């Protein structure tokens, strides 16, 4: 548990944090959000003591962190930052095993951990371990960043606008993955963003900040239903439509340019396509963009022969929705069939887009289930 | 970290490899001889060195070609034991005017008397007997030019100086007993006075970029470039008699040096020195070779 008690921060005469008190529970995903200069990043960096408060105390599991060794503290807190922050002169492996190395783990244990983490974030270790950050796409780099933060299995992970510099498609994908990862790992995550969509999608609770104070700290649904002030209303403004989700159709929220490939592509090429876009599946379409099926990274991994064509392995029977369908319909379909995404096709089976489950889950809130 | 280690070792190896050629430790009984960086100095330093080597068991280290009077003088004040030199050949005029800061004296014996006395008193440096030649400053023009314009003396030159450009060594153009004093006495009025390295002056006059140059009376290059020395008819330049300058403590430690060095007294005249210089500058002989030949001919070794 992380507890802020009357935290203030002054730079000269300017008070940037004006008495913040809050509690973040174990295993909770908390998103700090607000306009720039509201103090969200300052609060985040106080947790690993990159910034020291002017007054007040921060406790982690009941211990005053100002009395702890900052180096030791930081090694036990994962940290992911906006501009990726991977060390360009180190390989993916060296980047990930850095904290374990600082903690003097033996070599075999480090290597095992690196492989484990790369698998976890969907980058096959044998393929990516010895690459340098400059040889990765933005999305892949950020995955390595996440893997690095997880390296020494910290209980707390701080993420400072980790996805803001990444293109929208890869960002959605990374958000989905992070969400799934959190379902599995149940870390305490403190995540800073200025993107309300991202906050609604990921957070267990959202902490809305303004001018160095906390305006509202609650679950996404509660914030959507009962915004505490006009400021909050404005912040979530365009999202208010989601309170009547039946009115929203799939085409309003779908990804319009999903990653796709022709059946004549080889598996090796498909891997390349996925790697380029930072996704883990590819829709198979014919020359007229008609949907044929899907191939996931998982499918490919099972096939050793990378020269095989996609047409030999793709999954043919898959569920689809129409663009005009309501998001509620799409959501029901995904819930019933237990699938993470559903392609959107028109009456001629021509691919229009893709809807993912985590987008829906977070946009709609839990009241639908 | 590994890379840094590689770098460091690469440097060390290179330095060691390069190190084979240089350096050299000073054995105990070593005399360090210096010289300024022009031919006469290098030649005479070789002569002194060869002479000492021939008559004693001392090791002689030659540090020839040092950058000017001040380097030599500072070096001899430190002494060979402290990274300096023990002896070099200096000129009475330079000692009197530059190093002692006194006014020029026209009487050679008087000039020698003053430097000998003062150097001993102030710095414990001893002047041996003069070697003979007087390497005074002078002005030189092309022989053809002198004939054409009927130039014999400085006074002749002064009359047409406004048509001409002077090239002089930096030292000559600066020192009070050089060009500044000369200009006043003879009323020189050159179009321009360019300072340049002594060696480069000869090329400059040969290419007619300057028409008059400062020169040393004993300079071998005067012969090679067919230049004519003009007469200092008002006796402006003080005498510059060359003599070996040596540290008192070295002389005390090796008293035999006094007699050996004084063997050179009055052994080389102006003309002889000019010829010796010419053998190096004009004929391209090595100074050490010229030195040995001279010493043999003169019966000094």
């Amino acid at each position, binding site marked *: 548990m992380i507890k802020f008690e009357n935290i203030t921060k002054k730079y000269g005469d300017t008070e940037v944090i004006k008495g913040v008190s809050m509690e973040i529970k174990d295993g909770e995903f908390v998103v700090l959000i607000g306009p720039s200069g509201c103090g969200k990043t300052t609060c985040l960096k106080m947790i690993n003591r990159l910034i020291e408060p002017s007054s007040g105390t921060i406790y982690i599991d009941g211990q005053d962190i100002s009395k702890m060794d900052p180096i030791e503290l930081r090694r036990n807190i994962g940290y992911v930052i906006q501009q990726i922050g991977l060390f*360009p002169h180190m390989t993916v492996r060296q980047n990930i095993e850095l904290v374990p190395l600082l903690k003097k783990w033996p070599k075999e244990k480090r290597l095992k951990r690196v492989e484990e983490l790369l698998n976890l974030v969907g980058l096959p270790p044998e393929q990516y371990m010895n690459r340098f950050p400059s040889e990765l796409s933005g999305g892949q780099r950020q995955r390595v960043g996440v893997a690095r933060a997880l390296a020494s299995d910290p209980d707390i992970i701080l993420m400072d606008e980790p996805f803001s510099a990444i293109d929208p498609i890869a960002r959605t994908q990374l958000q989905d993955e992070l969400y799934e990862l959190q379902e599995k790992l149940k870390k305490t995550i403190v995540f800073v963003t200025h993107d309300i969509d991202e906050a609604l999608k990921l957070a267990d609770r959202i902490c809305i900040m303004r001018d160095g104070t906390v305006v509202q700290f609650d679950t996404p649904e509660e914030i959507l239903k009962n915004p505490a002030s006009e400021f909050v209303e404005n912040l979530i403004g365009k999202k208010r439509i989601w309170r009547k989700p039946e009115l929203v159709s799939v085409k309003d929220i779908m990804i319009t340019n999903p990653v796709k490939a022709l059946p004549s592509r080889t598996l090796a090429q498909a891997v390349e396509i996925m790697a380029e876009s930072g996704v883990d599946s590819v829709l198979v379409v014919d020359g007229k963009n008609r949907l044929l099926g899907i191939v996931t990274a998982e499918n490919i991994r099972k096939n050793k022969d990378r020269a095989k064509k996609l047409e030999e392995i793709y999954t043919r029977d898959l569920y689809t929705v129409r663009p005009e369908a309501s998001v509620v319909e799409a959501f029901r379909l995904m819930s019933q069939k237990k699938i993470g995404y559903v392609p959107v096709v028109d009456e001629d089976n021509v691919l229009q887009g893709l809807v993912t489950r985590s987008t829906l889950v977070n946009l709609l809130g839990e009241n639908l289930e | 970290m590994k890379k840094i280690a590689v770098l460091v070792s690469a440097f060390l190896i290179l330095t060691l490899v390069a190190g084979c050629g240089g350096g050299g430790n000073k054995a105990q009984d070593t005399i360090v001889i210096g010289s300024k960086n022009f*031919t006469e100095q290098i030649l005479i330093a070789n002569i002194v060195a060869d002479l000492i080597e021939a008559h004693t068991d001392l090791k002689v280290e030659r540090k020839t070609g040092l950058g000017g009077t001040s380097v030599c003088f500072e070096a001899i004040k430190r002494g060979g034991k402290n990274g300096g030199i023990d002896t070099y050949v200096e000129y009475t005029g330079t000692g009197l005017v530059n190093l002692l800061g006194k006014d020029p004296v026209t009487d050679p014996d008087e000039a020698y008397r003053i430097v000998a006395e003062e150097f001993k008193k102030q710095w414990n440096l001893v002047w041996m007997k003069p070697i003979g030649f007087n390497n005074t400053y002078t002005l030189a023009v092309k022989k053809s030019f002198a004939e054409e314009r009927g130039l014999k003396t400085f006074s002749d030159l002064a009359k047409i100086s406004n048509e001409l450009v002077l090239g002089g060594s930096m030292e000559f153009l600066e020192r009070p007993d050089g060009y500044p004093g000369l200009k006043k006495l003879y009323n020189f009025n050159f179009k321009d006075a360019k300072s340049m390295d002594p060696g480069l002056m000869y090329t400059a006059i040969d290419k007619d970029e300057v028409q008059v140059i400062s020169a040393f009376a004993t300079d071998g290059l005067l012969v090679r470039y067919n230049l004519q020395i003009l007469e200092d008819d008002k006796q402006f330049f003080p005498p510059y008699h060359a003599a070996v300058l040596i540290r008192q403590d070295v002389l005390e430690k090796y008293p035999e040096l006094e007699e050996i060095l004084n063997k050179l007294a009055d052994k080389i005249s102006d003309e002889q020195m000019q010829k010796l210089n010419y053998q190096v500058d004009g004929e391209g002989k090595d100074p050490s070779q010229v030195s040995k030949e001279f010493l043999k001919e003169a019966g000094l070794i």
Partner: protein
Amino acid sequence: MVSEYVDFIVQRMDDILLFSAQHLQLSFTAILIAIAIGVPLGIVMMMLPRISPLILGISNAVQAMPSLALMGFMVPLLGIGSTPSIVMVIVYALLPIIKNTYTGLTGIDKAIIEAGTGMGMTEFQLMTMVRIPLALPIIMAGIRISAVMAVGYTTLAALIGAGGLGQLIYRGISMVNSKMILAGAVPAMVLALLIDRLFSFLERLVTPKGIKL
């Protein structure tokens, strides 16, 4: 003309080799010491930004001092021979090393440094594992500039009795013997080029693989 020059070179080969070796030794010693002084100074400048203008100012001023003037100061203090020549060359070689070390260390992306700090690296670990490896190519470029300059400045060593190829050059000038000048200048030039090659090789060698272009 060319064959005359070649004859001269062959005839003086022993001298040329000896002087080249002296020259290399003086230059290398100076460069090594300049690295040993300059790199730590650059690091100090990075760690104490308040004194960095002072260090930079002094090394700039010293660099701007004419070499013969510097030599004039050096002889009364250090005498003649290799010590003052090496000191003189060091003085001139320092600036590019200090400057590049400082630029290299401070020019690193702030995000990378913050990531390192946030992950719990100590200042020392940050320096040795992140800053220096990333700055190394820039530091090496500075060293390369210094090294080439050092070979040039070392010709002045002849004027204070330390030998080197300057001896042939200055003797050649005073004797108005262009063959002798060339016999000193050409090897000096070759040495400078070789050293430039050597250091650009080292520069490439130390550039971390991940940041090679």
